[in-house]
């Protein structure tokens, strides 16, 4: 399968990416690792007229300690997250979830920013960043703005990022190495999650997020509130499907996904609360 023809622009700086996006509007797409975009283009589900290759912006690949939080460059590859000692010590949950993305080959190419901007509810990292109350830093023609992860994922493959903006950085709180569990259920090792459940202890309490239980990654306030009210893992997890809109497909019915959500949230809570 060959993508539809496009013009290729290799950007040398974030500003060049933004300039190309301003010039070409929604005719253009930004290429990072390409692990989500290129398959869509090969299937002709995406046919951008202009592809702006941002992958050479190596200055957007980093994990930094910024005191209060960690800052992660948008073009940091899953592999670099997986092997980051800083991330392992200060936000172990994100290192662990990055290690669950796709397979080695995918993690050698795919980037955290690409995963966030693609906005796929079946992706692992967006749900983790939602649970962590991450902040996304976007650069556009009028400068830089910060967006909260809550409210960023608007719909299926739809985010609050404007068509002329480039995601440049992701900021996450320091949650330490442990106190988290990610339960990913799938049929083949490398597949997308049929359902995924993440629990992570933060300063503000235990956060619970779900993968592939709706049009966007989801937090589950009913479970979080039950924990605040003193419920144990099993009782809290019984609320895991509340407020979700599970999709139905060849892999699983909506009812089965709801069942999986309750089971996986229970396991995630049991392991993260230890």
């Amino acid at each position, binding site marked *: *399968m*060959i*993508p*539809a*023809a*496009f*013009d*290729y622009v*290799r950007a040398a700086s974030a500003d060049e990416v933004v300039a190309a996006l301003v010039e070409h509007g929604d005719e253009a797409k930004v*290429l990072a690792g*390409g*692990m989500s975009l*290129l*398959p869509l*283009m*090969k299937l002709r589900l995406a046919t951008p007229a202009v*592809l702006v*290759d941002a*992958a050479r912006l190596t200055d957007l690949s980093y994990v930094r300690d910024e005191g209060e939080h960690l800052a992660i460059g948008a073009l940091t590859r899953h*592999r670099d997250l997986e092997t980051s000692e800083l991330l392992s010590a200060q936000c172990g949950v994100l290192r662990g979830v990055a290690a669950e993305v*796709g*397979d*080695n*080959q*995918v993690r*050698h*190419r795919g980037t955290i920013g690409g995963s966030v901007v693609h906005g796929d509810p079946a992706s692992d990292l967006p749900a983790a960043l939602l649970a962590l109350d991450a902040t996304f830093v976007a650069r556009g023609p009028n400068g830089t703005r910060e967006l909260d992860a809550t409210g960023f994922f608007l719909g299926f493959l739809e985010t609050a990022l404007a068509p002329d903006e480039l995601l440049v950085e992701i900021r996450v709180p320091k949650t330490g190495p442990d106190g988290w569990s990610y339960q990913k259920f799938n049929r083949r*090792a*490398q597949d997308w999650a049929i359902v995924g459940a993440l629990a992570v202890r933060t300063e503000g309490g235990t956060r619970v997020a779900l993968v592939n239980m709706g049009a966007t990654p989801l937090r589950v306030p009913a479970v979080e509130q039950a924990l605040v009210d003193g419920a144990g893992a099993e009782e809290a997890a019984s609320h895991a499907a509340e407020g979700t809109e599970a999709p139905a497909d060849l892999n699983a019915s909506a009812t089965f996904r709801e069942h999986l959500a309750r089971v996986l949230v229970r396991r995630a809570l049991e392991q993260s609360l230890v």
Partner: protein
Amino acid sequence: MGSGRKHLSSTYPKSTRSTVDISIDVNGRSERHDVEPRTLLVQYLRESCELTGTKVGCDTSSCGACTVLVDGESVKSCTMLAAQADGRSVTTIEGLAPGDALHPVQAAFVEHHGLQCGFCTAGMVMAAVSLLEEIPSPTEDDVRMGLEGNLCRCTGYHNIVQAVLAAAGTE
């Protein structure tokens, strides 16, 4: 009935859009071509470089048959543009060892019968080479997880895993 070699590139219309001039070190040889931006790395390797050891399997980055090394790391060449490899170093199965010599991973696949039909083998070997670069002394679990991106429909994986462990010297 067939009339010789038919290039895949003749099966879709040439774009009128501008081409990209790319230079890639392929198996230690400097290759320079003018390609359409939409040219996939696997298509470039097979057609422009005439290195057909790299296979197209699923064409959807699931099966790993097209795995090659870019700057020493395994990637699925069906899901990478040739233009993205511009200025980088690519190693295919043909470039693992000089001449008729076998790379230790290739030799281990022969010794341990790590293949049946052979279609997944090039990708499997390349993925294993990359894995051993990252984890020189893997456990069996490391090997199984490390090769999760490569599918083999013949072997049941047992001999492949044994071959990789043998190549690592940790059998």
